[in-house]
């Protein structure tokens, strides 16, 4: 819209300063647009387009316009400034010398995203999909195949813009190449899927880090998606960011009920589904899958932990995510062990059955030690390395117990390995984290997937703002 030459003002009726200057504006013959009352002046800016385009932050705003272009601007009421701009020395006679204005509706935090989406040349590159009036918006998203089976939050441009405020990274920056279709995924596409997953903007940096970690070559995300095995990405979050965004590392840490845990893991899976094109029954060939493929994300309970933070131990101190190819939760119960050697034996006995008690070196695992079990190690001065060393010794298994046919089970290792001593886990194939509520002498084993160079290796990445 071309502005009329002369004086132009933007006001809102709800602003006492605007009401104060109303007679002044009328006497000056200014062209006035009102934000909240279409009938107050000639100009109707109740859709706030003019206010947005002019960058109005305060009302009243008075402009001088020459040849359609703004040449001067004052905000609020100041006789001195208005006199200078209008060239009328005694402008507003009888009014106080100065009154501050009010906030413009166009910068109201509840409206600014919608205005930016509508008028801002938002910079969003994603295709815009218009839903028909008669379409139920949730059904429309199911129908297009964009959900994981649960409803998603419709990714409107406003919501995506708001999500993008959670990161300093540019919307067009490519974060990852996502399998199986090997699609370059931008920050914007991650934000779209994060909106759908139910994330808040402050969750976005963690989602971005999780995606970067999951698409690292050694994580083998394509294979993890395509496998007939159960596994999917499990995200463990370390550092102050976890508490800052409200993640749960305590009671029911691996369960439902916490928005950050639930939506960050879900956003990662939605990116794989929607951007990468990885859908169950297509490239995802899981025989059974596991419920963690909806979402599986938790924070490590660093406070009171016998162990250094998992990510720090893996070389990334501070805010970081570690992704692990995990297959669901196996409980470990030991309510009697009060010394670390006994408890380590319990862990070893339960870890031995990971995937199959007769299959060594085949599948990784993530052991999540609860606070009550953790206390036993902490009080005995056992750190992660000590526990892992103990478990390695306990889980070096005699080949004769593992060969095919032993125990009446065909599964096992070739007969030629009968004399060997075989480690249950490859080096680095057993992760140990600390999480859970204060009460309960239980820990958890998250079984892994095909390990290491032939399969997936865990990956840790920094969370960046």
């Amino acid at each position, binding site marked *: 819209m071309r502005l009329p030459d002369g004086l132009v003002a933007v006001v809102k009726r709800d602003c006492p300063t605007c009401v104060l200057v109303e007679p002044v504006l009328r006497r000056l013959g200014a062209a006035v647009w009102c934000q909240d009352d279409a009938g107050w002046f000639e100009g109707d800016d109740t859709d706030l387009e003019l206010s947005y385009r002019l960058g109005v932050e305060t009302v009243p705003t008075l402009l001088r316009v020459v040849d359609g272009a703004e040449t001067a601007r004052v905000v609020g009421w100041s006789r001195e400034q208005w006199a200078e701009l209008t060239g009328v020395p005694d402008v507003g006679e009888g009014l106080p010398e100065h009154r501050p204005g009010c906030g413009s509706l166009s910068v109201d935090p509840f409206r600014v995203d919608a205005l930016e989406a509508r008028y801002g040349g938002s910079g*969003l590159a*994603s*295709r*815009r*999909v*218009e*839903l028909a*009036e008669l379409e139920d*918006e949730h059904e*429309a*998203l199911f129908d297009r195949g*964009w959900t994981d089976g649960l409803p998603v939050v*419709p*990714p*409107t*441009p406003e919501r*995506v813009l708001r999500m993008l405020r959670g990161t300093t990274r540019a919307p067009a920056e490519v974060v990852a190449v*996502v*399998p199986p*279709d090997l*699609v*370059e*995924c931008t920050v914007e*596409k991650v934000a*779209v*899927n994060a909106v*759908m997953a139910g994330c808040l903007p402050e969750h976005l940096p963690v989602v971005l880090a999780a995606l970067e970690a999951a698409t690292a070559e050694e994580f*083998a995300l*394509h*294979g*993890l998606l395509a*496998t*007939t095995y159960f596994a999917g990405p499990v995200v463990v979050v370390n550092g102050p960011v976890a508490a800052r965004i409200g993640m749960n590392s305590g009671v029911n840490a691996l369960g439902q009920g916490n928005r950050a845990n639930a939506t960050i893991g879900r956003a990662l899976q*939605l990116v794989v589904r*929607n*951007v*990468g*094109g990885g859908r169950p029954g297509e490239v995802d*060939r899981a025989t059974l899958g596991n419920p963690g493929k909806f979402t599986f994300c938790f924070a490590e309970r660093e406070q009171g932990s016998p162990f250094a933070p998992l990510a720090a131990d893996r070389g990334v101190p501070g805010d970081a995510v570690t992704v692990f190819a995990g297959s669901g939760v196996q409980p470990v119960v030991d309510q009697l062990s009060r010394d670390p050697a006994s408890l380590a034996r319990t862990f070893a006995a339960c870890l031995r059955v990971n995937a199959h008690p007769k299959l060594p070196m085949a599948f990784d695992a993530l052991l999540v030690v609860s606070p009550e079990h953790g206390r036993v190690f902490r009080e005995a001065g056992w750190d992660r390395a000590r526990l892992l060393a103990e478990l390695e010794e306990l889980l070096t298994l005699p080949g004769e117990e593992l060969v095919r046919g032993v125990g009446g089970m065909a599964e096992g290792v070739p007969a030629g390995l009968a004399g060997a001593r075989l480690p249950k886990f490859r080096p680095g194939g057993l992760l140990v984290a600390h999480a859970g509520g204060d009460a309960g002498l239980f820990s958890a084993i998250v079984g892994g*997937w*095909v390990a290491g*160079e*032939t*399969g*997936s290796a865990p990956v840790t990445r920094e969370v960046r703002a």
Partner: protein
Amino acid sequence: MRTVLDPTGERQAAAREPLPRPASLRGRSVGLLDISKARGDVVLDRLAELLAADGAVVRRYRKPTFARTAPVDLRHEIAEQCEVVIEALAD
């Protein structure tokens, strides 16, 4: 009118007509890719026998692990050397 943003990769796969199906495999180069799954070789050995009996020239390939996609050089080698693709999935 409600507007949502497309969450997909918005990939436009190039549409290509497949070549006409050959009437016979006699004299054709057929590639068999072993993905390194346990006992996959048993299936592929038998398939190679049957294809050879039909007069096909069988070429054998193997990728390092079933858990990862085939290395790009291997994919290129197969594309260069083979005339026929048999796409199948079993586990």
